[in-house]
């Protein structure tokens, strides 16, 4: 076919923009993800609900115990923050999943990856921003509720520094890592409802299955399922007194970090090779 345009020769002087070209890097992706996470209402909502759960439930338990006759002299007081944090984990998982899956749901992901073709950079920025938001919020909330509990339940023994550290920093790190796992699952599943369901299953299923495994020959499996279930690991972080099997001390944090890292590695691999 004859194509006259080919004889048109030299192209028209091409356009050059007055906007300076500066090489973008991870910091720019972080700024972008920070704008994203702070500018949607679901972030504000989930974090508010999380605050109400952690502080509210922690306070309720402390007040109830204080007015009762229960003997708490030898209890680790900070443990009473456990129930609020366990429920708040649902908020963290939801936020983690939504950070990624909402982009797929709205189609924003195509715009995001057009603006930043390095998918690893996008995922790294998302994971970092999300992790820090959850970690800092949980740290503040657990510190607040811990301080309130200690001041209300002044008849109990004061927590040691190690107990304080694990019940605040450790719990926050654990929860933020659980959030990272949800974020990775969000990348893998790409569907908000599906990914949130999967994560709730991850949290609840081992315990539920363990309950039904009341068979003599499977006692070991039952015990392992219970010990390594997420609620139990979270509880161990508060207090491992009397725990003689399964993770102890700081181990839940390492386990959760390793699981989240493995899931994120999968998310990187899939995101880099998959069509959007």
């Amino acid at each position: 076919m004859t194509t006259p345009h080919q004889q048109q020769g030299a192209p028209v002087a091409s356009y050059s923009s007055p906007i300076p070209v500066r090489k973008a890097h991870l910091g720019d992706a972080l700024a972008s993800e920070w704008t994203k996470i702070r500018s949607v209402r679901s972030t504000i909502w989930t974090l508010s609900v999380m605050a109400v759960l952690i502080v509210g439930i922690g306070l309720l338990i402390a007040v109830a115990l204080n007015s009762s006759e229960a003997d708490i002299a030898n209890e680790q007081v900070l443990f009473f923050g456990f129930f609020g944090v366990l429920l708040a984990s649902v908020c963290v998982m939801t936020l983690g999943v939504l950070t990624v899956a909402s982009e797929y749901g709205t189609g924003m992901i195509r715009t995001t990856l057009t603006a930043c073709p390095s998918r690893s950079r996008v995922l790294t920025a998302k994971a970092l921003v999300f992790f820090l938001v959850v970690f800092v919020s949980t740290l503040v909330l657990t510190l607040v509720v811990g301080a309130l509990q200690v001041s209300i339940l002044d008849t109990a023994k004061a927590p040691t520094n190690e107990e304080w550290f694990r019940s605040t920093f450790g719990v926050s790190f654990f929860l933020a890592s659980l959030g990272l796992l949800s974020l990775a699952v969000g990348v893998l599943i790409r569907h908000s409802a599906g990914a949130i369901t999967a994560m709730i299953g991850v949290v609840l299923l081992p315990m539920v299955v363990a309950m039904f495994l009341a068979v003599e020959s499977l006692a070991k499996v039952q015990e392992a399922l219970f010990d390594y279930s997420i609620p139990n690991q979270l509880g161990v972080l508060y207090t491992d007194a009397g725990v003689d099997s399964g993770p102890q001390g700081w181990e839940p944090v390492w386990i959760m970090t390793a699981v989240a890292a493995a899931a994120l590695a999968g998310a990187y691999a899939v995101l880099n090779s998959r069509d959007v």
Partner: protein
Amino acid sequence: MIELEGLSKRFGAKVAVDRLSFQVRPGVVTGFLGPNGAGKSTTMRMMLDLDNPTSGSVRIDGRHYRELAEPLKYIGALLDAKAMHGGRSAYNNLLCLAQANRIPASRVSEVLDIVGLTAVARKKSKGFSLGMGQRLGIASALLGDPEILMFDEPVNGLDPEGIHWIRNLMKQLAAEGRTIFVSSHLMSEMALTADHLIVIGQGRLLADTTMAAFIQENSRSYARVRSPQPERLRDLLHTAGFTPVEVAGGALEVDGASTERLGELAAEHGVVLHELSAQRASLEEAFMQMTAGSVEYHAHGTSDPGRSAPPGPRWGEGPPADTGPRWGAGGGSGTEGI
């Protein structure tokens, strides 16, 4: 400059894009035309590195898209107007894109002004109409003031004023020396905006030509003639060396005949005419004919896909023998001008 080299995409057994090679040149509006499902969007997604090609490559100014550190400054794309987070304000939707490419935040207000969304900048984009969403998408494409702009079906959902606006915008952007690549399934729209034309069908390149050449090659002109004595008229035309084709309403269409010649011929032999008019097949029709026969007209040969078919069975009156009725077999053979 965008260069495609043997670009192919296969989804399972289905070949969506089949060895596409073409160039998109700067300074002109290049129309990317094909029926729905021809592979236009898939091709555009591969250009932006959203989908991985099965084989072949796309280069933007000689580089792969993934090698561009701040791609928005090279290439701005409107793929899907709804590709924004509805819960975020228009301003914030653009701001996070700008930040990812180190574009100053002041530019966000500028592009919102260009597309006329300043008044709703702080409103959630969820509540935007289709046309406003389209404008927001265009704003995101313009954000980096890029040299190359890609629009996938930009006039979809726009009102006439909006369509007019986007046409002028594209022309103005091209005049500034930018590369404009715009897809459409409407030939009539392309005829108004594009200087260059790339047509694909079933993922294959069917034509890569200038708009002017396409119009010249494809707008078949013919005369339409109707008479209460059709038998006599037909014999008369045959004798004169024409091959009339009967169409609905008892009229005849005669290719390559001027109305003057037919009028004189009828008068000479005393045939009564009720209608005699010059017709020009629409480009839409030429386009449909081209894409319907895409199996026959694949671009790897030297055949000239631009030639419109001889006045055989026209589009819409009988399905082409060798292809399935891909393009609405019920589509009429209207002669509406463009």
